[in-house]
């Protein structure tokens, strides 16, 4: 099954971008599509800026517009977390600093679920 993973990033460098410390305020989101074999099909970068986040009001709603299967991040506010959970999007805790590395970890099922919204951002 194809999978779409969304990861907040500090810059536009796609797979080589650094993860952003805070989900909601990340300047960019990297959208990675994997095929059944876990191979990367495409990588897109979208800026996390908008007058109104696409008319939906919040980054979490904007990301849901892309129909993700999973989000990988260091942490996330409890509100956004519960919205993703309700939408059956897996929210996983990032264990590395670079997009390429967390995608590898994801493919190997090495990432844990993020279960609690945490206020303090970790800066890697």
């Amino acid at each position, binding site marked *: 099954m194809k999978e779409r993973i969304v990861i907040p990033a500090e810059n536009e460098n796609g797979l080589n971008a650094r993860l952003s410390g805070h989900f909601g305020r990340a300047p960019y989101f990297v*959208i990675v*599509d994997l095929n059944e074999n876990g191979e990367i*099909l*495409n990588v*897109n970068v*979208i*800026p996390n800026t*908008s*007058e*109104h986040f*696409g*008319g*939906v009001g919040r980054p979490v709603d904007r990301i849901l*517009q*892309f129909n993700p299967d999973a989000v990988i991040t260091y942490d996330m506010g409890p509100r956004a977390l519960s919205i993703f959970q309700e939408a059956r999007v897996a929210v996983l805790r990032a264990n590395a600093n670079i997009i390429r590395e967390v995608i590898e970890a994801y493919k190997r099922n090495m990432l844990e679920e993020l279960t609690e919204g945490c206020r303090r951002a970790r800066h890697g």
Partner: protein
Amino acid sequence: MIVSIASGKGGTGKTSVAVNMAISLGSNIQLLDCDVEEPNAHLLLHPKIIHEEPVYSLVPSINERLCDHCGKCAKFCPYNALFVTPDEVLVFRELCHGCGGCILVCPKGAIAEGRHKIGKLSLGYANSVEIVYGELEVGEPMATPLIREVKRHMNKNRNVILDAPPGASCPMVETVKNSDFCILVTEPTPFGLHDLKVAVHVLEDMNIPLGVIVNRAGIGDKKVYEYCEKKNIPILFEIPYQRKIAELYSKGIPFSLEIPGWKEKFRKLFNEVKVLAGK
């Protein structure tokens, strides 16, 4: 002549002035309510509506059979309204500003102009005043395309009064653009003065001649008057703070209909504006 009525600060009495002026002039007048987010002029004018139409804005419509997912449209789009991968194209219509660029850059001609309803436009009459107003759909973020549509119904054979939205950003700018004169309605308070200055700045940048009406005169201080004198801005008119005027407004009744003398004052005001505008 085209006169716009703006303010900077909300709630200063723009709509009241616009409607009272329109009904005082009686004939050959058209009122365009460009405060499409919260249109109020019709609540004071009580027109008989004879025509309503939905208003649409452009959104790209992708023909999947012609599209080869090259992604040029998404690359161009300055508003991130398009997202393209080898197997899907997503259009985020709330982000689309309707520039039409995607249609131009698509090498396969796979994008057509689709439309999306953003609100509705109504036209009506109250005696000989013609009113056109727009009402933005709740949840729609952008007022400007609807304001443009309201203004497209401008009838230059009539004297036109434009009721602007509050603020000094693009909905207000879109409304006052190309008017012969702009009347700024303010109240003599610190908030009123502060926001008036912002509005004056905009009009000066746009080279639109202006004058000020002080509404609720008597409730605050003299600073608004001192500012206008210093800047040589004509104070065209004062509407005193009177309980009766406030009461009539709250009931949806234009006060010039009930309190004698005002119709004549508004007519004189309009003629003075004509002179100042060079018309």
